[in-house]
């Protein structure tokens, strides 16, 4: 099946700092989503971005499908940004089932 690797695995930032999270995947995809899992376990949708660039407030994401990677940018980080960030993809090879395969996540902690 498709492989999804995220980096870095852990990240500690001072409030106000910027960061870039990376997601590499091993096959062509027809779905790529970024999620934030908050300390209560809720998966919050950040971006649905199988290709291209999107922005939402302090967050933006870029997926370069031909090179099989996606980047999530967090600017002016806040303590409420803390949690685990997951990249999840669905491979075209799964026959259209849209099963999401998740990466292992990036654990982010933003300190005052």
């Amino acid at each position, binding site marked *: 099946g498709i492989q999804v690797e995220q980096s870095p695995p852990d990240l500690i930032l001072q409030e106000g700092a910027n960061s870039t999270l990376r997601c590499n995947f091993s096959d062509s995809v*027809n*779905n790529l*989503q970024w*999620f934030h899992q908050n300390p*209560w*376990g*809720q*998966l919050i*949708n950040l971006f*649905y971005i199988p290709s291209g660039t999107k922005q939402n407030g302090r967050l933006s994401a870029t997926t370069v499908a031909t090179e099989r990677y996606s980047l999530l940018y967090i600017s002016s980080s806040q303590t409420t940004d803390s949690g685990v960030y*997951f990249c*999840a993809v*669905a491979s075209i090879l*799964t026959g*259209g*089932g*849209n*099963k*999401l395969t*998740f*990466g*292992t*996540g990036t654990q982010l902690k933003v300190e005052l």
Partner: protein
Amino acid sequence: EAGVAQSPRYKIIEKRQSVAFWCNPISGHATLYWYQQILGQGPKLLIQFQNNGVVDDSQLPKDRFSAERLKGVDSTLKIQPAKLEDSAVYLCASSRDRGNEQFFGPGTRLTVL
């Protein structure tokens, strides 16, 4: 628009007991998914429904897990009998159709003692 609803939020049972989880997807969403998330890992798909038919249940341990989606709306996931390794968060998600953005519910945290 209401999100994906799940109940219960927490459940503690002893091994060999049975348990059931309920999910109500976003209105109008044809595709429903159950994922299992073990502590420290990303969620893994257990079963996917398209309306009331199963699309993918290749990762469902069918000797103890079962799921149904009667009438193509609500769904239940059952474990019988439970094992210690079933301790996890069970997440339900839905999407308008296959290939569309998936939205997750709050999950049910299961502890098997």
